[in-house]
């Protein structure tokens, strides 16, 4: 960490949200606001946001990583936070970030549910300089009706593979298998409510006219990738969005390896250099 990484707090709906601001030594007029997943925090999985923010600082890009309400160090109730709340937090974070730094151009980088939040925020802030969406889940009407079934099948296949190991049988025979979690993995119905679908549909509706570049990065071994990538590709093509997509062949949902996370960061930096910085007439 350089001396220019400082704790940064802002308010959203009367709650104090905590984060860390990365100030580059030779700054450009560009910042990245990181949006973590549903149960994550401002570090991102395996400190991915920390590493990405430090690398971006070397390119002259500011970053703000923060904890949504009810997550990490931020105030708020853990179990009553909604995606809508997270969008509100993002909009407040954007204002605070720009007020603090004076930046005009901000890119949102989200992972998993953070991607839905990014699209929800972009629907209200069309002036954003771009979105980088890592493992974006399909949302609203883009969500395939078979998504829950596919996840259950994936979990069933995973448990079937586990049954092939001696360790699993030792656990079963000694009563150490936590059936509650197995049942939850197989039976949890992840279908959104009608209200959630309507809200996400409204976000997508506004997002159709988003003018700035969008990058999708997926892991090839994420069970959601094929359907989500197909749905977003069709959506972006149909509405003429400026988009590109990259798949890391063997990676899982949260890019849990040094090689995969390195590739996510390389791709994102290259995209920021080419599509965001150069397109604005600056040298990357």
């Amino acid at each position: 960490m350089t001396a220019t990484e400082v704790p940064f707090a802002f308010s959203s709906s009367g709650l104090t949200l905590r984060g860390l601001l990365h100030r580059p030594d030779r700054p450009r007029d560009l910042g990245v606001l990181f949006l973590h997943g549903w149960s994550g925090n401002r570090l991102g999985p395996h400190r991915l946001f920390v590493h990405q923010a430090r690398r971006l600082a070397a390119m002259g890009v500011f970053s703000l990583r923060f904890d949504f309400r009810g997550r990490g160090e931020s105030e708020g109730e853990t179990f009553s936070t909604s995606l809508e709340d997270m969008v509100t937090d993002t909009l407040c974070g954007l204002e605070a970030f720009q007020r603090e730094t004076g930046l005009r151009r901000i890119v949102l980088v989200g992972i998993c549910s953070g991607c839905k939040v990014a699209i929800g925020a972009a629907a209200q802030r069309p002036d954003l300089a771009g979105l980088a969406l890592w493992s974006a889940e399909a949302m609203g009407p883009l969500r395939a009706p078979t998504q829950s079934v596919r996840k259950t099948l994936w979990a069933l296949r995973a448990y079937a593979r586990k049954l092939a190991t001696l360790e699993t049988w030792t656990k079963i025979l000694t009563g150490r298998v936590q059936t509650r979690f197995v049942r939850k993995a197989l039976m949890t119905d992840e279908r959104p409510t009608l209200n959630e679908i309507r809200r996400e549909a409204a976000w997508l509706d506004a997002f159709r006219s988003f003018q700035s570049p969008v990058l999708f990065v997926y892991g090839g071994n994420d069970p959601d990738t094929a359907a989500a990538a197909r749905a977003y590709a069709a959506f972006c093509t149909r509405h003429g969005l400026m988009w590109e997509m990259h798949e890391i062949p063997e990676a899982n949902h949260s890019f849990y390896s040094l090689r995969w996370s390195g590739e996510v960061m390389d791709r994102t930096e290259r995209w920021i250099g080419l599509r965001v910085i150069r397109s604005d007439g600056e040298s990357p």
Partner: protein
Amino acid sequence: MPETSVVFESGGRRLVGLLQTPFEGAVRERWLFAYPLFEERKSSQRVLVTMGRALAASGRAVLLFDYRGCGDSEGDFEAFSLPHWQADLQTAADWLAARFPHARPGILGLRLGATLAWREAARPEKPFDRVVLWSPVVNGQAYLVAELRRKVMKEMLTFGAGQSRRDDLVRKLQAGESVDFDGYAVSSSLFHDLAEWDSTPPFPSVPPEGAIIGLTPQARPDPALVRWAEAWQQAEGRCTLQFVAEPPFWSLIGLVPCTALIRTTRFWITGETG
């Protein structure tokens, strides 16, 4: 509760933390919290922050911070190992003592953080009066081997077959190479330091007062923790051993309230049922 983000130096690196304090009144005790490592830090953060808020509401000050190379703090994970992180705990304890010199010192840790906390508390200088250990890691090498086994298992679930073999990973570490563990580069020196942690360190002549709280699915006693508590009592230290039925929240992706764990710990520390 009033909460402040803090930054302090340890070993030439800037460490980032959160200080939680009571709204009013004198601070009766100052508690240092020791995070676990790897993704366990991410999964346990909210539970530890909530625990800290419960203690701050009872007149305690709590400091949570990231060791060097971890979380928000400066440095790369691969460059550091257990002695560095133990030194960070000492620095953090001194930092907290300078702010609340009249408060009684305590330390609480989870998993490997609990083991680090215990080693710190067992120093002859006796820097802490009270210690709480949540599911401490008893054997460092067994812990790392189990984590590597989990890595191989995850690969099986992802690819249908393991990409690496546990024995090969151990051989690499023994040969001085680093191993990619879920996006963290585990260094050979961390592996060797963990291997030396084969048991709990010797008890000081007057051990601190402490509680070992084990989390198991059916609150079933863990024999290793029972032995640890017996050794503590034989060393004439006051030690409470409790098992709480809670999921291993440090290794779960979703959020878990851990109400029973927080209630049990708060009662042991404050005597309040709250």
